[in-house]
């Protein structure tokens, strides 16, 4: 992967882009000068990014560019890596989420996450969906039944599993497991759903089902999706951020970024010249 042209390209003009973006929806996440290190590796460099409510924001970039790291910073899952160091600011609806006083458990109930590989618990389909509600203190069987049904319907899985809710989740296909994980996230009614390459382990049919689902979820949730698949980003997202070597190279409306990118590096990446 040759990126020798990096130095030739003009400086990005983030402020003007931010101005243009401010006309639309409300901001959910405002990231300012975010830097992150894993030990000595500088994984995120001066990241500035505004994420808007009830939109689908795609994050693209080659492997190791920091896109998953950025996503995991938004619900502080990145802190599970013992050597991590973070500086800068991220606010969620004007609250500083990197502040020690912001409880990480509370953040994660507002900001749900779906992972690259489906990771249901080794429990029944019902228990998987009810788990989040249960740990947050909901015990009433009737309410739980309702939450499970509503969440599975929300994840377009109800019709396929309604007769076997007591069966082990590992009996489902990969695509169904991933929709189950989405249902599990919906069950605690978050505001934002983070998706870390949610279709990379799935076949094309399951992928298109999940993409369809993501489109419908947009009505009620702000979605941030990391993807390796540029067609996917172009198909489903409203805005796209292009990450390279830990920096945001370009962030714009998806049509604009894919049809007329400002930065030479973005153009090279989306036309498949590297990555």
């Amino acid at each position, binding site marked *: 992967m040759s990126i020798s042209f990096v130095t030739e390209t003009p400086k990005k003009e983030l402020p003007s882009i931010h101005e243009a973006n401010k006309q639309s929806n409300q901001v959910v996440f405002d990231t300012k000068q975010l830097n992150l290190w894993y030990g000595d590796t500088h994984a995120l460099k001066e990241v500035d990014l505004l994420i808007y409510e009830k939109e689908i924001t795609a994050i693209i970039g080659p492997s190791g560019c920091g896109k998953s790291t950025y996503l995991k910073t938004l619900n502080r899952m990145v802190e599970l890596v013992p050597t991590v160091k973070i500086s800068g600011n991220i606010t969620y609806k004007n609250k500083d989420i990197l502040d020690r006083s912001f409880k990480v458990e509370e953040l994660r109930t507002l900001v749900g996450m779906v*992972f690259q590989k489906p990771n249901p618990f080794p429990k029944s389909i019902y228990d998987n969906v009810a*788990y989040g509600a249960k740990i947050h203190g909901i015990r009433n069987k009737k309410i739980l039944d309702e939450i499970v049904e509503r969440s599975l319907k929300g994840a377009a899985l109800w019709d396929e599993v309604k007769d076997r809710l007591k069966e082990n989740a590992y009996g489902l296909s990969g695509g169904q497991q991933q929709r189950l994980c989405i249902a599990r996230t919906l069950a605690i009614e978050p505001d934002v759903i983070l998706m870390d390459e949610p279709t990379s382990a799935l076949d094309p049919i399951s992928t298109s089902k999940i993409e369809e689902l993501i489109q419908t979820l947009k009505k009620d949730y702000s979605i941030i999706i990391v993807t390796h698949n540029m067609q996917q980003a172009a198909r489903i997202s409203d805005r796209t951020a292009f990450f390279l070597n830990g920096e945001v190279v370009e962030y714009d409306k998806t049509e604009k970024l894919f049809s007329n990118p400002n930065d030479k590096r973005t153009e090279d990446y989306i036309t498949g010249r590297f990555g």
Partner: protein
Amino acid sequence: MASNSHNEDVRVRDLITEKRAKKSISQIFEKIIPIILFSFALITILTTIGIIYTLLVETIEFFKRVPIWDFFTGTVLRPLSQDPQFGVLPLINGTIISSVIAMLVAGPIGIMAAIYLSEYASDKIRRVLKPMLEVLAGIPTIVYGFFAFTFVTPLIRSIWPDVEATNILSPGIVMGIMIIPMIASLSEDAMSSVPNSIRDGAYALGATRLETTFKVVIPAALSGIIASFILGISRAIGETMIVTIASGSSKNFTFDITESMQTMTAYIVEVAGGDAGAGTTIYYSLYAVAMTLFVFTLLMNLLARYVSRKFREEY
């Protein structure tokens, strides 16, 4: 190099064909070795069968002298008296009580240690602690035995004076200490083999570390944890030295843990170490008790296998 390689290839191939063509010793070895290895495997199987056969024959001989019903329901064991009685219940009782005490000590401590090692300790701490825990498992049981008799018993008696000089409580506790590493180590293995992706799933829903441990990791590792408990019980039932030294040889049928009791194993030590002449009823009682013990531990091991299959949560 390119021009040479072709020549060399041909030569190597010729050598191999040449070697193949020869009926070499190694070919004979290939055929003989499996037979030799099989016969060694057979030795272990035959030994087991032989032991069970001996146990059975001598046990049957014993039951010709003492009715089987009297043996399994008798609460009095007086092998050396003028009017000997051979009720095995005092021994079964002693065995169960000492094992229960051991598990009350080893179960909670073992599982807590496992949770700490698997879910909380940093890699560095785990790398130091786990080998140390396994050293504890390497201490000879005779050492635990006099540790129980010369240290733990006096300690208990200084707090609780009713406890007799030989009692079942002290060896029970010490057996528990002996079993801790086994339970901690096996349970830790079971918990650390639960994939991190499943933990991440729980954290992402806002679960705390404690909630993740108790509601996701432990249920997923339950089969391994239960199996470690059952193997621990099995170890306690078969343990001999500690109870022989610290629990005395009174064949009391009681539930009072301050008193001396005898376990099946300790009885076998006592009788085998005494001068029970071959052919006497006492001599045969040895086999009947050993058979009972064997059935106990066999059942425990079968149970452990059954449980670890039955409760396996697949991930």
